[in-house]
């Protein structure tokens, strides 16, 4: 009897991957955050669109995703059913935490979505343009306090890059790290700080309501529906995108990688994914293959440079 059950299970296990395979997606963060949201959105769409019969999400929070990344690289080598969600923040965290496991130890598949950074000031501020803000920064870097997320995160990097582009010593910026977007936003709304940096989406409602002034966005081109220049337009060569990606386990055969890439491409092309992104207000920045690999490399190098400049990486 037991053999029969095992036999059936074995047959089923063999039969299924020929058509579609199950996935386990690791979100290297607590429930509720962006990576967790990405993983759960993938789960929902992949199941609904029949890309995979069963998708499970596990959370392994800690240290900007490096705890999850290390566990993923160690435990799932050679397993084509394991995926991990990650992103730009991870690139910085690997450097600042001197993580022994890097993105080279997994198999990046594709960039999925991205957030653009926004620079805002409280509505009551006398600063009207990014130019005004940079003038103040040049005059006295300490007098310009910036509210944003964790030290060494995307927000901090954006400020560092802007300072550098404006010819201000990046180690001199007065960056005040807040835990979580909520507290930083409260500090900006309460006029406690000079300026704030976070994703465009975080600020959108406030800007619409007129409680904050959007000075610039960090994308290469202006964003549709958002009335603000890019940082580049304002004269500073800074483009930052807080992207999110999906990666597979290390040690896979080219066929296995091709199969996973095909599934992710199917996900990206599906109507369900398009609708999901629209509902969540995420921008689709799908990029796969060599182009993604090249971008990853460029981003890592640039991030390392700026973190060194800010003084977070020795």
């Amino acid at each position, binding site marked *: 009897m037991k053999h029969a*059950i095992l036999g059936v299970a074995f047959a089923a296990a063999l039969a299924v991957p020929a058509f579609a395979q199950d996935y386990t997606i690791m979100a290297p963060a607590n429930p509720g955050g962006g990576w967790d949201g990405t993983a759960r959105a993938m789960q929902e769409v992949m199941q609904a669109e029949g890309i995979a019969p069963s998708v*499970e*999400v*596990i*959370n392994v929070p800690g240290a900007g995703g490096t705890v999850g990344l290390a566990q993923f690289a160690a435990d799932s080598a050679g397993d084509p059913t394991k995926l991990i969600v990650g992103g730009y923040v991870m690139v910085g965290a690997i450097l600042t935490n001197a993580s022994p496991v890097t993105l080279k130890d997994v198999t990046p598949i594709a960039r999925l979505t991205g957030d653009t950074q926004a620079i805002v000031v409280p509505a009551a501020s006398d600063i009207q343009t990014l130019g005004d803000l940079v003038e103040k920064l040049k005059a006295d870097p*300490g007098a310009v*306090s910036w509210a944003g997320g964790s030290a060494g995160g995307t927000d901090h990097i954006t400020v560092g890059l802007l300072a550098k582009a404006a010819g201000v010593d990046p180690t001199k910026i*007065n960056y005040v790290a807040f835990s979580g977007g909520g507290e930083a936003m409260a500090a900006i709304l309460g006029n406690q700080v000079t300026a704030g940096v976070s994703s465009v989406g975080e600020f959108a409602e406030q800007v619409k309501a007129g409680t904050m002034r959007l000075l610039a966005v960090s994308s290469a081109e202006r964003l549709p529906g958002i009335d603000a220049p890019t940082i580049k337009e304002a004269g500073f060569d800074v483009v930052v995108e807080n992207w999110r990606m999906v990666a597979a386990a290390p040690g896979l055969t080219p066929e296995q990688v091709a199969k996973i890439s095909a599934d992710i491409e199917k996900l990206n092309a599906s109507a369900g994914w398009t609708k999901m992104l629209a509902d969540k207000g995420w921008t689709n920045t799908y990029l796969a293959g060599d182009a993604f690999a090249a971008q990853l490399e460029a981003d890592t190098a640039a991030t390392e440079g700026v973190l060194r400049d800010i003084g977070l990486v020795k």
Partner: protein
Amino acid sequence: MSPERRPRGAAFVIAAGLAGLAALLLVDAAGLKQDGGYAGVGPGDVPRIIAYGLLVLSVLTVMSGLRGDLPKPPRQAPAPVFWILGGLGLQLALLHVAGFVISGAILFGMTARGFGQTPLWKAVAVGMVLALVIYGVFDRILQLNLPAGPLERLIFRG
């Protein structure tokens, strides 16, 4: 801290522990960037203040120990403590090998044994049923990811 130790001795052990903790904080703080940035208070400063506080408390603990101020604990039975700690240790060791249900059953069984429930196998069996129910409810229905071992795969996925 062995349970039989007399209060006065225990005070010295506690004081040594506090001083040790303070030393850890001070050594670690010395290795941090000393620059406080615009705040003037750097990452090492608060740990240092806490370490000084611990040192003062350590001295006060020694003095209260000399006076015998520490309450004398009632006599302790060590066996149950070892049963429970053993259960926790086995759960830790076996969790990723044997899965949530088996390691949880062992923890439950050994805890129950520590509280005087014999025989052990019966306690483990009860734990197995409870852990299976928990696994079913939390992992299967509520999608809380609990480590699966052979048993979970056989019952829930086979």
